[in-house]
């Protein structure tokens, strides 16, 4: 589940877990209400806003969470999958931010759940923790587990997900495989200064979306920057300064959101 901050990712996860009540509609997990103990026994959860006691050790708290589930993983295995073997005897309060994030991952998987809900799992992870996390997620996915995770990094979603749901302002604006999504999201940003003030007519009909136009300055998003420039030159637009760069996610979302609005309106 991909979206910028404030898109409604955490709210969606909270609804799926029964931590919030929907104002309309209903949520079913394994055909059960998400608050049902049988449903919860088949879920693993990693929340953004949560904590644990500081005075238990990693091994102790993993052991405690294992007791909540009918058929948990061996504690050592869950701890190893989270990359915390060396810290197993350390108290939670002494862990670094990244290690704490790994602990939450260990707590999420220790019940050997069929489905994992991970809300912004890599926030606060260092490079090493992130690598261990990616490997574990791929291992789990390979054994048939369903993993639902939220992120605001397009690259992370591409790397890990088989299906990406893009949401913004609480609305699904895309639901596709990473490859499909990439094709729909413009990958390049063209920033230019023209030799004369530009008008809308100069930019109409180009394979690009205009995100900024002010006098002789314009910014466009496109997957075909070369075609855009060729067409501009053909129209007699003189380019004084030009920069073509990779579009960042906020900008990519902007075009998807605009398209959603256009479709709705």
């Amino acid at each position, binding site marked *: 589940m991909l979206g910028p901050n404030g898109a409604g990712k955490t709210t969606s996860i909270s609804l799926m877990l029964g931590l919030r009540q929907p104002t309309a509609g209903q949520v079913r997990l394994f055909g059960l209400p998400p608050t049902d103990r049988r449903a919860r026994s088949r879920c693993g959860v990693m929340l953004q806003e949560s904590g644990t006691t*500081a005075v*238990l050790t990693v091994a102790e708290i993993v052991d*405690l969470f294992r007791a909540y589930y*009918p*058929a948990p993983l061996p504690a050592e295995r869950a701890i190893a999958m989270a990359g915390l073997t060396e810290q197993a005897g350390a108290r939670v309060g002494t862990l670094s931010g990244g290690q704490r994030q790994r602990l939450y991952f260990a707590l999420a998987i220790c019940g050997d759940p*069929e489905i994992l809900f991970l809300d912004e799992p890599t926030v606060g992870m260092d490079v090493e923790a992130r690598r261990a996390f990616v490997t574990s997620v791929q291992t789990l996915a390979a054994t048939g587990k369903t993993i639902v995770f939220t992120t605001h990094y397009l690259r992370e979603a591409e790397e890990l997900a088989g299906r990406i749901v893009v949401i913004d302002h609480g609305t699904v604006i895309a639901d596709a495989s990473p490859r499909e999504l990439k094709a729909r999201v413009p990958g390049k940003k063209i920033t230019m200064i023209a030799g004369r003030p530009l008008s809308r007519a100069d930019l109409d009909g180009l394979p690009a979306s205009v995100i900024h136009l002010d006098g002789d300055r314009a910014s466009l998003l496109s997957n075909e920057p070369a075609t855009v420039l060729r067409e501009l030159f053909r129209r007699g637009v003189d380019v004084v300064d030009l920069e073509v760069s990779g579009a960042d996610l906020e900008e990519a979302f902007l075009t998807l959101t605009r398209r959603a609005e256009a479709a709705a309106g």
Partner: protein
Amino acid sequence: MSAGAVTRGAPATPEVARLGRMLAAQTWSEMRIRWRIPAFSVTIVALPVLFFTFFGLPYVNQTMAGGTSLGAYLLASFAAYSVGSVMVFGFGIGVATERALKVDMLMRATPLPPIIAILAKVLNAQVYALLSLVVLIAYGMVVGGIRQDLTVWLDMIIRLLVGSVPFIALGFAIGYLSGPNVAPAAANLVYLPLAFASGLFLPLSQLPGFVQRVAPYLPAYHYGQLAWSAVGAASEPMTVAFAWLAGYTVLFFAIALRAYRREESRKFG
């Protein structure tokens, strides 16, 4: 999240973990957590002994008007103080701290039923209350030379543990109404004057007249009766004491529940 992908594969048997095992693991963890916070574990054992040393030991050899040993009476008073403080401070500060750490958020998403989590806390508090009572009574017997039948002490311990529920409720109310920094002060501000005004530190007869008139309306006064009755010095029937304590349990839980709901609606809107 197609339903097909999620429901694939037969559910693990059994479907849920055994509640008894959850309760045991949860209680054991709670006990370990408490034990590792010396501010709690030392205080709950040491303070009643300390208070009894100052307020009780000088009078152990005196006898009350009704023939009861003043030493036994004062030991019973501090026993009641001790159990009440385990509950008010343990639950008050414990709940406030867990709320601040957002422990509840993650727990709510696990299969652990909230009632098991609460029961574990209660069991844990009962164990610490028992520990504190055993240490205090042993101290009174050895250092104070207070002699009573063993059944008297057993009777007192059972009554105090059973009757401690309103103080658990009071702890929950404090824990939900205050943050982790305020909770210790709030617990002190509520519980210490309450214990004093109920005659747990000094016999009521030695307190100002207006306090003597207020005392029969306070929960700790009726809680004290449970302990005093065990040494034969109660001033009201046990049924009356338990009725008052039941009433206060309802009141304090209602306050706690209101505060809890208010927070829930703020957090989960």
